[in-house]
Structure formats: C-alpha cells, structure tokens
C-alpha cells in the first residue's frame, strides 16, 4: 500500500468512526456518565489519529516519506505495548470491577469495550512518547 492510499484509508476510517458515534448518540436516548467517558476517549483517539494522518500528508507534500524506518520501529513497539495492555486489561477489568464497583460479573461487551479502548490508548500514548523521544 502506498502512502497516499494509506492516508485516504485512514481518513475514511476516521470519518466512519465519527459517523458511528453520531448515529449511536442520536439513537441512544439518554446517555449516562460512563458512556460520556467512553465518548471522550473515542474523540481523543480520533484526534490523535487525525494528527498522525495530517503529519504524514504534510511530509508527502514536502517530498519526504510519510513514514521511515524510525516510525515503522516505533509503530511495532507501540503495537507491542498495546497488545500487552489488551491482554492485561482483559484479565484486570473483571477483577477491578469486582474490587472497586462490587460487580461480581462483568458482561462480555463491557470487557470488549475496555480491551479495545485500553489497547488503543496505550498504543497512542506509546506512539507519541516514542516519537517524541526519537526511539
């Protein structure tokens, strides 16, 4: 996949996420506080993804590559941290829900949402930290 195709696909994915969120909000009726937190996290992830796409487009316009060996290594490292976070959040979410919220059983869809959000957040934080540090 070349750089421009990647950017177009990234933009499409971002728009689809925002559309899904908009459709959900319009049909949800009343939205409770925990859902608002999830929306905020999704918006932060969308903003971070948009920044990455904009940064790549800027480099292409200057005649530089959208990503190079350093960014590819950073993506692999951040992906690894996100994967570890996904595993541990799947294990830890039911335990923490039991300890702090007194919920002996956490439904599967909550765990799925937690795993996706936690791994995405850890991926983004690791990506930006490593990109800032240079390695």
């Amino acid at each position, binding site marked *: 996949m070349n750089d421009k195709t990647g950017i177009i696909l990234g933009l499409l994915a971002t728009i689809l996420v925002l559309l899904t969120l908009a459709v959900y909000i319009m049909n949800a009726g009343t939205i409770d506080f925990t859902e608002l937190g999830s929306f905020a996290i999704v918006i932060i992830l969308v903003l971070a993804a948009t920044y990455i796409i904009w940064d790549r487009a800027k480099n292409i316009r200057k005649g*530089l590559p959208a990503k*190079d060996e350093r960014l590819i290594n950073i993506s692999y490292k951040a992906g690894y941290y996100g994967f570890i976070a996904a595993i541990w959040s799947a294990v830890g979410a039911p335990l923490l829900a039991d300890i702090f919220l007194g919920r002996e059983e956490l439904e599967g869809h909550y765990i799925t949402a937690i795993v996706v959000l936690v791994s995405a957040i850890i991926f983004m934080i690791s990506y930006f930290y490593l990109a800032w540090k*240079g*390695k």
Partner: protein
Amino acid sequence: MKTRIKELRARYNLTQEDLARKVGVRRETILFIEKGNYNPSLQLARDIAKALKTTIDDLFIFED
C-alpha cells in the same frame, strides 16, 4: 554515540530536510540521529555517509 552529521551538513550547505530528502527519511529522523537519540540501521547509516561523501567509520563516533 556521537555523529559528525551536523558538521558535514554545514560543510556541504545542506539542511536537515535536504539530507532527509537525499536519503529518503523524515527530517525528524535526521535530527534524532544527530542528537544521538536514534541508532540508524546499517543501510541508513551507509546512505547518510554516502550523501555526505564520507564513510560510516568517519561519520559515527562510538564511545567505549
């Protein structure tokens, strides 16, 4: 690890962006290599050395 990239860039009147374009990486990658924050692959080190008309041995100073 220290490098002589900055010094050689100045000698050939190249900006970080010019050098990045020559070797096919992003400008930030050149910046991090110059600062010693990123160890480039052997291939990239060779490309930078070639662009600055020198050798890898001359470009990178390894501290024991």
